């Protein structure tokens, strides 16, 4: 079913946690390893604008549906960062803009070159490159939902579970947008399928890999995706990705977990 962008923009809101009793975390604080994972998640949400920058360097920014979506998506993700930061703040972990700036400054040359590489590839491949971005976005949003669901299951903290449920609900609408765009573009072009398949299988890595230290990526993936349940969740994401036109057989999430040495 086509994604209704007007309905999405009209109903896009900042995630609300004002009714949740965050003081519950003082009585039942989250363990240190979970705070580390939450911190990663907050950083990634705040960094969404960095991914937007990559997306914007290709022809996709010229399309009004994509522009409208990205405007709302960016803002929703920013508020996910704020919501997670509020939970961290109760635990004495504060995230301010200067600190985020400091971590972005550490990204170095790769970060500087990324938009150029994206632009060059976008220019070479042309309109079909949008399919890569949309499929990539779908894979990221599916894995984000899975990560939030896994976090809620593992912690069994009612307030955290409710907050993560609200965040994941918004991510589900992002998935709907990305998949509707990706499916349409993949179905229309064999070249788009080939380029997307190549890009995902060769370059996809868990969300946050390009901006966080490798040990943080390993911690989060190990925390959320290890063991039988974690693998089952990863397989589910892979099944969704490989269900898109021309992407059958891809197992990018499981492959990434193997590369990181996450126990199955």
């Amino acid at each position, binding site marked *: 079913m086509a994604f209704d962008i007007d309905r999405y923009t009209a109903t896009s809101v900042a995630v609300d946690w004002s009714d949740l009793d965050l003081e519950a975390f003082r009585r039942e604080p989250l363990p240190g390893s979970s705070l580390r994972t939450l911190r990663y998640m907050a950083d990634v949400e705040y960094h969404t604008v960095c991914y*937007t920058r990559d997306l914007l360097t290709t022809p996709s920014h010229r399309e*009004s549906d994509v522009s409208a979506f990205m405007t709302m998506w960016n803002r929703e993700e920013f508020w996910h960062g704020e919501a997670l930061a509020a939970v961290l703040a109760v635990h004495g972990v504060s995230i301010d803009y200067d600190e985020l700036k400091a971590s972005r400054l550490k990204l170095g040359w790769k970060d500087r070159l990324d938009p150029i590489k994206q632009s060059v590839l976008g220019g070479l491949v042309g309109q079909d490159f949008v399919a890569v971005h949309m499929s990539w976005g779908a894979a990221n949003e599916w894995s984000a939902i899975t990560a939030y669901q896994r976090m809620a299951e593992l912690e069994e903290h009612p307030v955290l579970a409710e907050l993560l449920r609200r965040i994941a609900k918004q991510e589900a609408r992002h998935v709907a947008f990305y998949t509707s765009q990706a499916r349409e573009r993949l179905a229309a072009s064999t070249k788009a399928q080939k380029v997307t398949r190549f890009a995902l299988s060769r370059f996809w890595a868990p969300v946050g890999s390009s901006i966080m230290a490798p040990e943080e990526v390993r911690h989060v993936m190990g925390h959320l995706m290890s063991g039988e349940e974690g693998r089952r969740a990863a397989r589910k994401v892979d099944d969704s990705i490989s269900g898109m036109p021309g992407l059958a057989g891809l197992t990018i999430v499981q492959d990434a977990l193997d590369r990181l040495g996450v126990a199955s």
Partner: protein
Amino acid sequence: MDDLSGAGSTPTIGVEPAPFDVRDFARTAHGSHREGLDLEAIPDAALTREAVRTILTLAELEGATMAHLRNVLVTATHKDARVTAFLVSWAYEKYWVADALRAVAGAAAPVGATRANDASRPAVAAAPVRARGRGPIRRALAGFAQGSDVIGAHLALGCVDDLVLDLAYARLAGDVPTADGTPDPALGDAIRRIRAIKARHSAFFHEEATRRLETSPRAARLARRELSRAAWPLGAASVSDEDRRSFARFALGGDPGSASALERGIRSLAGIDERTAARVTGRLAG
């Protein structure tokens, strides 16, 4: 609370005003204006064709945030989390300003004119997107050398663009463009709402640009260069040349002193000289 001690009171000389609160701005960002706009009260044919065309062009310009973000986020500007946090909500508010403008244009279009579609977004894909200024690759490469000083230049661009667009809003808020020469309260209210939204954007851009240009001569030099090179208004690449020229005529054609007022506004930014201000008005009028 004592009103005199609250926010908005005149700052005492020598006391620094509180810096722009980005988190508060994000928290209070305004979404759709549809419920607040009294479109029914705007009579058909309330505006001249020229004014309707200007409003539709303004809608395109206000909505062209993603193209602008592309240009600034490929540089060090994306590293500044405070600036990017602002830009996220800025783009959101401008999206809904553009939506409100299209609704107003649709309600006030002259009889017989093509009425703007008041329900949907513009077909940006169909708009003639031309290469104005430098593309993202050249900007990203230039950004390597410019470092964080380019952030001040980008904030100055945002500030001046608001000044340029406000010339048109100021004229629309007056009684000049109405078809029968009398002010229309519903239209006036719509324009006031939009200017109130934009006043916060301008406050951030001006404050942040001033701070950076004052403390870094290199940032000021980059700002002079960016301002002199830019296509005005900033979203010009998303409208046709004819619409851009028509917009400029309208914006500069009201008060005979509007060009010099614009130049004064531009010069109020630290380190921005008369020559740079004149180049902006020259490029806008050209």
